[in-house]
């Protein structure tokens, strides 16, 4: 029987212009056998969710360095819900203060990785927590 390959959208919402971290994650995920849809910089939450739906990804991984995580991430989650796509796992990484993490998790962000997390940890988390759509 055919087997699902996990698809992940990696992107960077907001205004800051560094995509180094996002690219490193994208490569690590590819090397772990995932199909990564890399959408690059400066997307709105609407664009991210539409792309995630069209690409039928199992997970959206966002990199945020701009400090706008408390608005951007819940906004993405909210639009996912509106569009009937809350089965897509949303996770984030970047410069995010520990104190903000519980609030983000309460808003439906499955996991938040802070700087210094190894790509192995992130890949392992994906394997454990992202199951492909039936």
């Amino acid at each position, binding site marked *: 029987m055919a087997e*699902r*390959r996990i698809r992940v959208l990696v992107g960077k919402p907001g205004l800051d212009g560094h995509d180094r971290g996002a690219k490193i994650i994208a490569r690590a995920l590819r090397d772990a056998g995932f199909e990564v*849809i890399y959408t*690059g910089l400066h997307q709105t939450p609407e664009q991210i969710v*539409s792309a995630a*739906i069209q*690409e*039928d990804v199992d997970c959206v991984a966002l990199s945020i360095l701009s400090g706008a995580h408390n608005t951007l991430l819940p906004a993405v989650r909210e639009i996912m819900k509106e*569009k009937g796509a809350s089965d897509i796992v949303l996770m984030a990484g970047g410069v995010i203060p520990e104190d903000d993490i519980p609030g983000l998790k309460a808003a439906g962000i499955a996991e938040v990785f802070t700087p210094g997390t190894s790509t192995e940890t992130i890949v392992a988390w994906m394997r454990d927590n992202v199951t492909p759509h039936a």
Partner: protein
Amino acid sequence: MSLAERVLDGEIRAAARLMRDIDDRFKSAVDELKILYPHTGKAYIIGITGPPGAGKSTLVDQVVAAYRKKDLLVGVVAIDPTSPFSGGAILGDRIRMNRHADDPGVFIRSLATRGALGGLSRSTMDVLNVMDAMGLDVIVVETVGVGQDEVDIVSTAHTTVVVMVPGLGDDIQAIKAGILEIGDVFVVNKADRDGADRTARELTAMLEMKHPEAGDWMPHVIKTEAAKGLGIDELVDEFEAHHSYLKESGALQRLIQERNAKIFADTLREELFESVFSGIKESGKYQQILDGMRDRSTDPYSAVEEVMAARSFS
């Protein structure tokens, strides 16, 4: 409701999921495709090929914008290579097309080659059929662009576009003859760069040397600067001219015939192999054959003949 019915109802998530099922080779996808098939055959399909970095994705983005201005619904299938080492892939063509992401009149899907050669993925034709059945008017396919063997696009698209850039070794002669055969439209992108006029001139001269028969389509060379959206209107006019030519000359009917024949042959080949191979594996015959080949008591040719003789085809 089945996925196919939901697709026909205009449900985006259903279409996206069906494309996934197709790509992951779920048996159920075949049944869905059967339902969709009568609703296909309406979309105009443009294939874009050319070396990596030539600006294909940037061009696709501009072409999408141009067709949206005409109020047409547009689909994009963008193909990137699967890593032979991990089986994973980075599909990055969307980076250039993000502005269309939340336009409900545009549907973009990235596909990984998953081992297929020829510039497309195995699922491309079926994914195009889903987009066609969704009612998209124009679908643009961006091939991998490894520069070799990108021939599958010709049997997939109505109009095949070959994108080049100035100064490819400054020697158009070096361009594989094959590339001249496959293009209906040629683009010299990055026209802002030195040598664009020369590349376009040389390319035109080479195309003229092919001496098309009277009434045949004569491919033109269009210069574009995709990054700035220059030359796009001319390019889209050329697409339309080719599309009209196909319809008026009868070439479209021939193209469709060839395409149908190819789809049927591909499907037959795949299904036959699947069914015969799994049959002999289950019966133990496969192991017998391998054993026989090991001690040289049988050879692969006789073994296949024997397997085929045990089945009847009409």
